[in-house]
């Protein structure tokens, strides 16, 4: 319902197998499809309704509906893309079938990692030749931010998801799986392939590698941190494993979150990548100029988006420039009047700054203009609104709205 001072931790949600992440929104009114459009889209799925299917994907993500999303995936194409990276004789037929089943199962079960309900919105969709794309992002208010570009193909007259690209983590799903399985495959046989004098070391590395994978499967951040520390260096030097760790660590305390981010910055920060990921790092170290530069660069890649403008506003807020913060929020409000996150964001800040009468104005706008339904005791139960709920302005509003 309300903003959670998002810039503390931007990145939370992953969309598949621990590596796709998400949280964002769009300037269009309410991109969540209603039940009617969802059912229509499910029936039609033709090439002409790209926009509708993009909305459906966003809706499924928001509902954490693995099954519905998986039904839109063409796993054959995804699998072939991954398997194409392996030599033909890498597997026996039996091994191949088994491998394929495992991979399919993984995609099916892990296509959305988090089960929290977070609103996802379509930022834009497009067609170039036979390639269809949907750029979606999660809501700012869901506790994290993510931009994911789904790639779709027309398969037998229906648009099917054949890949997706996590723009924040800068990784394509099929590339990530390919890399992961290459590593697994290699490590599984490493003790056989090793020279006799290396066997001890290799077995030790095998153990540590698979312990890390087990830690990821366990979902226990502490266990993952310990396992990551013990990972052989060559895996630590791959973004894949550091990013996997980050998926689970964002809910932890700042020192450990900082540690993981520092690791990413130290190892991969100089590559000109992971601008968006490192914003949290710069916030934790109070390097606001670097955070702004990173955000600006990311905005250049993504294009205009109110969410990014709100993040830029929040950067001003972090630096104590409240006037700029409010001015930028007003600008976002003018340019994207239907982007509701702005109102919640402004509301939280007005409450924090003690502008209770103005905070009530926001509630009126939400209630009257956007027909937002407030639940009983929605504010009273949250500690950050305690003083606000005691104010005359709130009481007056409550009495009026009741």
């Amino acid at each position: 319902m309300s903003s959670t001072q998002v810039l503390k931790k931007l990145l939370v949600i992953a969309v598949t197998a621990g590596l796709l992440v998400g949280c964002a929104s769009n300037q269009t009114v309410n991109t969540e499809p209603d039940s009617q459009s969802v059912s229509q889209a499910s029936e039609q799925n033709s090439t002409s309704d790209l926009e509708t299917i993009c909305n459906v994907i966003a809706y499924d993500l928001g509902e954490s509906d693995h099954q519905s999303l998986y039904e839109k995936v063409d796993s054959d194409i995804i699998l072939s893309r991954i398997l194409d990276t392996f030599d033909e004789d890498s597997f026996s037929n039996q091994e191949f079938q088994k491998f394929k089943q495992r991979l399919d199962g993984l995609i099916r079960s892990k296509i959305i990692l988090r089960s929290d309900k977070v609103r996802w919105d379509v930022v834009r969709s497009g067609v170039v030749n036979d390639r269809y794309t949907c750029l979606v992002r999660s809501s700012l208010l869901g506790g994290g931010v993510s931009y994911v570009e789904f790639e779709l193909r027309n398969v037998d007259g229906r648009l099917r998801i054949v890949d997706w690209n996590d723009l924040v983590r800068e990784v394509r799903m099929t590339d990530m799986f390919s890399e992961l399985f290459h590593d697994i495959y290699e490590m599984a046989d490493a003790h056989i392939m090793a020279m006799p004098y290396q066997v001890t070391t290799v077995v030790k590395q095998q153990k540590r590698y698979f312990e890390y994978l087990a830690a990821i499967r366990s979902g226990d951040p502490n266990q993952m941190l310990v396992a990551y520390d013990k990972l052989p260096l060559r895996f630590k030097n791959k973004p894949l494993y550091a990013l996997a760790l980050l998926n689970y660590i964002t809910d932890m305390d700042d020192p450990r979150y900082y540690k993981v981010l520092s690791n990413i910055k130290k190892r991969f920060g100089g590559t000109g990548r992971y601008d968006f990921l490192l914003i949290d790092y710069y916030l934790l170290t109070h390097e606001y100029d670097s955070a702004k530069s990173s955000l600006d660069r990311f905005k250049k890649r993504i294009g205009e988006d109110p969410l990014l403008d709100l993040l830029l506003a929040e950067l001003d807020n972090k630096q104590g420039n409240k006037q700029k913060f409010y001015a930028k929020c007003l600008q976002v409000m003018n340019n994207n009047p239907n982007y509701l996150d702005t109102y919640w964001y402004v509301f939280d800040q007005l409450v924090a700054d003690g502008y209770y009468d103005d905070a009530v104005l926001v509630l009126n706008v939400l209630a009257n203009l956007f027909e937002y339904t407030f639940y009983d005791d929605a504010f009273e139960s949250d500690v950050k609104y305690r003083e606000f709920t005691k104010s005359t302005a709130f009481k007056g509003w409550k009495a009026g709205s009741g």
Partner: protein
Amino acid sequence: MLKSKMLVAWKCAVIFFLAGPVVQAGVNSNGYVVDSTPNWVVERPYDTSGSAMNAQAVQYLLVDQQHRLLSKVGKRPSQYFYRFAMRLLNRAGLSSNSQLEISFNPAYQTLHLHSLKIIRNGVARELASSVYVRMVQQEEQLSLDIHDGVVTAVLIPEDIRVGDIIDYSYTIEGRNPIFGAKYFGASRLDFSAPVDKLGLRILTDSKKFKFQSVGVELEPEQHRFQGLTEYTLLRNDVPKVIDDGETSPEYSPFSWIDYSEYTNWKAVNEWAAELYAGVGFDSEEVVALSRKLRRQSNSWEDYITQALFFVQNEIRYLGLELGENSHRPRAPTEVLNKRYGDCKDKSLLLATLLKLQGIQAWPALVSTNSRYGITRGLPSPGAFDHVITLVEFRGKRYWLDGTRMYQAGGLADLGYSDYGFALVVGHRDASLQQMYPEPPLASRVDIIEEIIATNFNEPVILKVKSEYHRNAAEVQRYQFQNLSLDAINRNFLEYYGRFYDGIKAVELPSYEDDTTGNRFTIHEVYQIDDFWNKKDSLIYNKVYNLSYIQVLKTPKVQQRTTPYRLGSPRQITSIFQLHYPKDVTLNLEEKPITIEHPALRYVYQDQFEDDVYTHTSSLVLKQKDVALTDLDKYLLSLKEIRKDWEYTLTVVNPESVPGYSDLQKLKARLKVISGIDYE
């Protein structure tokens, strides 16, 4: 204007023959005789039984031209024989040919009428001796302040009926002595009507004749006749030419053949240089004027423009182009004393004033008709019809025109006309020179239209500020100096009234004329009573982007055979602002949209901020012509661009939306908290 009289004379005959009669003026019977066809003329038979299927009002049976051009001393003067035969197919044909017109210049020419036959049902009546002839000094260019002395013989035969054939022939003897012994000319090889038989025959004692056909590949046959060289060319069943119109001269679809004794442009330049040589420098008055202008100017550049503006504004334009003065300029001192002159007089005076102060300047011959097309034909003095001045100053070239009026500003601000190529008289480069290899902007116009609304129930105010530069400034300067403000106001209102209902002027237009920067600014204020339309909870209004309507047009003929002329390079920018009466929400795609075409670039963008809708747009014409290969794309681009010229803005009526006033209050509060002026 400088003219090739001989060329004009015969062209006029053909044009009248095809186009019909023109206005009459005074009478002069000099230089007209009736006599028999010269013995050097070869009789050309024509077929009267041919089908008139493709003809319209008139079937042209024969167009015959035979010229005897002798250069040796003691020979007879040059003779230009013409014969036309046409059948009048209907009343329109009868009406347009009830009188025949033949133009010539009695100062050095004589008209010999040989025959005028009316043939009806195979029986001919000869009317040459009895036909009523009025000699008319038409002075067709009088409206341009040019007196050329040309006379038109108007022949009015009696009893002509539909179905008759008119067959008449005449010779114009004599030629403007200014052209000396070298011959040149041109003959059309097709027309906008079909011609059954078309002949051209030239007899000459010269060995230097060159021919060049343009638009069609034809070579005259060469024979000997009566001791002379005979060139003949005959065309049968010449189809009519369909002229798309709106085409630059160099792409004219018509064909013709040039003949000339001039071997190259340098030879033409030498001919011109003789006419301009030795005049101007010995005049005390001109020297005194040059010194006076120098004293008044604050830089050399300023001196150039002061001299130009003196010639443009203090010397009245008047062309007494009689006889040799069709091409020979008058001495600058004479022009200065009489305070009038034509293009060549003004050009020479300006060049002289500049040279006297050590600035390099030359008269330059140009063609306002052929422009870039001048290179298609043969070199000849007849190629030009205007003179301007080339100035070379500090490594730059400026083409100045002493006949232009309403110019202002510095050298870099002046408007210009691109005549394509110029022959700079006496210049070290004696050949044709391209005036503007990379033509600069000829015009720039910046328009700001602002509509201010106090509420949705009252009339709105439309304020227009138009800023004109270069040629555009000169056009506006002309308008405001020649029309009353009332008349201009009526014109403007008439224009806007086509788009906005209930528009009226709040005040008369006002203007600022910045003559130092050649910038002319016009301010207009109107009230529009019926601007808003309401339906249910919506309020909508039409937006008209009027800045480009006069510039970017759809070709009248779209299935073209010739490139479409866009005009000189121009740039127009337009800002339209609509100040909404109260906070409204307008959802716009604010990205700039660019429509790019090889010949133009159009960019527009919508923005909405602080209750003001702003539409910015700009048009740059990059090429003067749209190539045929680009035409389809041009039409598509135009279609796309036109969508930006008229559209509707729709907003929700704030009074009908719950919560809307809360949103406005919130925004107002955020402005206060944020310090309002944050950009």
